[in-house]
């Protein structure tokens, strides 16, 4: 701000200097009033582009220059003639009022742009809030209901019933906590430029870490991992890519019945490493396919399946940040298939590390 203010004053000095030079050339043909008009033009230009202070400075400077260079006796300052004083006051008034007008126009334009941006954000936020309030309130309602039932009716409940309520409280808190993390993650990914902490990671390790985190949810599923031995390390933000795998796995756990086979295959083609996650569950409903990676898309309508509906949109955001491609379809024999296509990059030479 300070910087731009000084630049404004520098520009104003230039404007007045330019006006003075022009007047110097023209002075033999023009009257004093005409010369004042040239300065007035400078003041209007200054007022249109700079703050009020700067345009006042321009008016004052112009008046001094006019008096100094063009009012006899030349090269001296005399503010005695009342007509010159009026010229000075007019310059000042024009400067102040023009800059006030210009400021108002600028503010109006900014407000209009902001309003347009806000309107589209507003729409997104409304759907976001509607969905979120449902997703957070449902587990919260179970927690509050179970806890208050325990507090008020404990003596009338069997031990088994009490345990069921306690189990619900713990389980729903866990779900709520995951939802909140999803929301925070999504907010972080959309809040501004994300700085990727790219390091070289073996896919085996990232997939392993993701499986570990989803272990409790995949207990009833048959999981197999097949990584082809020629798969190189990948240069990625490990935490985000692990999150991507976690969300894909949670998605599989959530929308396929117990006993479903989930297979993760990793293979290398010419310029890609492909991670393919497939299951033999019911597959992706046709109606859902085009919106799969959008925020708040859910295979089952309200309530039946818990989840923020943000999981796959986080996957897509992470893939896009890494210039990877993430796609989904159904296998001909049934079941969903997700493919993450990672551009190949040459891994670092680690031979130095082998001094062992």
């Amino acid at each position, binding site marked *: 701000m300070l910087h731009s203010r000084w630049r404004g004053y520098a520009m104003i000095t230039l404007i007045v200097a330019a006006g003075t030079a022009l007047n110097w050339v023209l002075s033999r043909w023009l009257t004093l009033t005409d010369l004042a008009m040239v300065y007035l033009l400078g003041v209007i230009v200054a007022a249109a582009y700079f703050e009020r202070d700067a345009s006042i400075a321009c008016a004052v400077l112009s008046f001094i220059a006019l008096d100094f260079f063009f009012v006899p006796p030349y090269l001296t300052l005399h503010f005695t003639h009342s007509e010159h004083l009026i010229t000075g006051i007019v310059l000042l008034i024009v400067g102040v009022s023009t800059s006030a007008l210009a400021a108002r126009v600028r503010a109006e334009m900014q407000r209009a742009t902001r309003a347009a941006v806000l309107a589209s954000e507003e729409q997104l936020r409304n759907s976001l809030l509607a969905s979120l309030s449902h997703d957070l309130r449902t587990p919260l309602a179970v927690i509050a209901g179970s806890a208050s039932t325990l507090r008020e009716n404990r003596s009338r409940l069997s031990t088994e019933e009490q345990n069921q309520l306690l189990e619900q409280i*713990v389980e729903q*808190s*866990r779900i709520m*906590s995951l939802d909140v*993390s999803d929301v925070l993650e999504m907010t972080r990914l959309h809040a501004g430029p994300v700085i990727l*902490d790219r*390091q*070289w*990671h*073996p896919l*085996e*390790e*990232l*997939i*392993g*870490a993701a*499986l*570990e985190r989803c272990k409790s949810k995949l207990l009833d599923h048959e*999981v197999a*991992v097949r*990584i082809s031995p020629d798969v190189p*390390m990948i240069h990625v933000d*490990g*935490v985000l890519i*692990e999150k991507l795998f976690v969300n894909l796995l949670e998605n599989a756990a959530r929308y396929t019945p117990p006993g479903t086979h989930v297979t*993760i295959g990793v293979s290398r083609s010419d310029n890609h490493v492909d991670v393919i996650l497939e299951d033999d569950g019911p597959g992706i409903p046709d109606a859902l396919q085009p919106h799969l990676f959008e925020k708040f898309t859910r295979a089952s309508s309200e309530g039946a399946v818990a989840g923020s509906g943000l999981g796959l949109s986080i996957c897509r955001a992470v893939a896009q940040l890494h210039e990877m491609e993430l796609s989904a379809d159904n296998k001909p024999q049934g079941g969903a298939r997700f493919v993450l296509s990672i551009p190949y990059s040459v*891994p*670092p030479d*680690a031979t130095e*590390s082998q001094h*062992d």
Partner: protein
Amino acid sequence: MTEARPLVLVVEDEPQMRRVLRLTLESNGMRYTEAISVREAISKIRAQPPDLIIADLALPDGEGLRVIRAAREDSSVPIVVLSARSQESDKIAALDAGADDYVTKPFSAGELLARLRVGLRHAAARASGESPEAFTLLDLRVDILQRRVTLRNVPVHLTPIEYRLLICLIAKAGQVVTHSELLRAGWGAAKLDQQHYLRIYMTGLRRKLELDPARPTYLHTETGVGYRLSAD
């Protein structure tokens, strides 16, 4: 430990959280004491050294990291951070400052107690003054005196660096060990910015020790922070 029941200092400014922790700790055979600020924590640590510290990171009068550093000045008391901050950089900062482990809120009582017991166990082992002669976990046995590693009674050949990494993880079994700590253990100070060396060696170790390296039993990844060897 002056008494059989360990004294746990909880540094936490939320009263509800303190109540949950007090009930959890006292019902599990531990003594409870509390501090609600950095200043109070430091004076309590000096006045009555606890057997274990549970520290929040955001305190009303400053960063919990200051509590960790102050405690580390003259003691190896186990410190477990309990924080709502889940960013990897926060975990690394706390571990580098001297914390032994990091549990994120919300947490389950079982998870927290398991980490506390690991911390107390390591402290007891240190206090006994004897360096452990062997480490056994499921099918894995590491004879530290003879530098011999066996898996299901079959000798496993490890390279010197692999062995040093494994020993570093064993020393903190059950606790997360940061990348920089492992790099220092494996290569000295020279390779601290070369995390991929570490990952290549951990992959090698897993190939030798794990039945399915993508679903490890012993060597777990804490992505963005480090590695953790199972405790039991």
